[in-house]
């Protein structure tokens, strides 16, 4: 299963090693890790709650991985997304992609992150000194997704 939604933390090194296995066709592994920052939109963030839509989440992530497979020449891909209570410096998401060459690995990894940001049903609620607030969707994320439709 190339996608996982979990409350537990993940060990990026171990996940990458498992994804690579002993496949000697792989020449490139591109990885992205998203982490919780202690500030957002200028406001200190003390913690956050990550909520998702069980049932849809895995399906949406699988669809994104399949779309990446169709667009890029990759061997394998892994997406892990955490939910629940998270604090600054905690890991949120891992995307790892293996390929023969680096171009496809980088492209597919970035593609998966860009599409995940606008399509996967996750929501962040931040706790700040002024109370808690749902995070607003970023215009930059919509722009990043658009990039892939105009490139196509």
């Amino acid at each position, binding site marked *: 299963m190339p996608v996982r939604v979990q409350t537990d933390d993940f060990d990026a090194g171990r996940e990458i090693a498992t994804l690579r296995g002993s496949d000697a066709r792989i020449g490139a592994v591109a990885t992205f890790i998203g982490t919780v920052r202690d500030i957002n939109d200028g406001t200190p963030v003390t913690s956050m709650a990550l909520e998702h*839509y069980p049932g849809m989440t895995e399906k949406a992530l699988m669809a994104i991985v399949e779309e990446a497979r169709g667009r890029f020449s990759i061997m394998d891909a892994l997406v892990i997304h955490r939910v629940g209570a998270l604090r600054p410096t905690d890991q949120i998401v891992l995307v790892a992609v293996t390929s023969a060459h680096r171009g496809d690995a980088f492209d597919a990894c970035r593609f998966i992150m860009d599409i995940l940001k606008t399509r996967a049903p996750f929501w962040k609620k931040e706790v700040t000194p002024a109370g808690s607030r749902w995070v607003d969707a970023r215009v930059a994320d919509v722009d990043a997704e658009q990039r892939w439709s105009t490139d196509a």
Partner: protein
Amino acid sequence: MPDSRTAMPAVTTIRLVYLARLREAFGRSDEDLALMVPAPNVAAVLAVLRARGGIWAEELAAGRAVRVALNHTVAQADAPLRNGDEVALLPPVTGG
């Protein structure tokens, strides 16, 4: 057996799911909704909810960035609904 063209529309019962900010705004995470319209679709559900007025009309007003998922896949307004379907209302996502 009555002619289907003149029969009363059947009742279509769907499951509504509200996520994140919408769950808090509506004060509930889910509910069952009985639609008594012929050929019910996503647009019909939104019309019923908007007709409740107040926060419902406000949050689901045209132009608000609410996405609808039908049985866990994003759906358009004209997607037809069947008994037992799960229809979720999703505010803009902010994962990753």
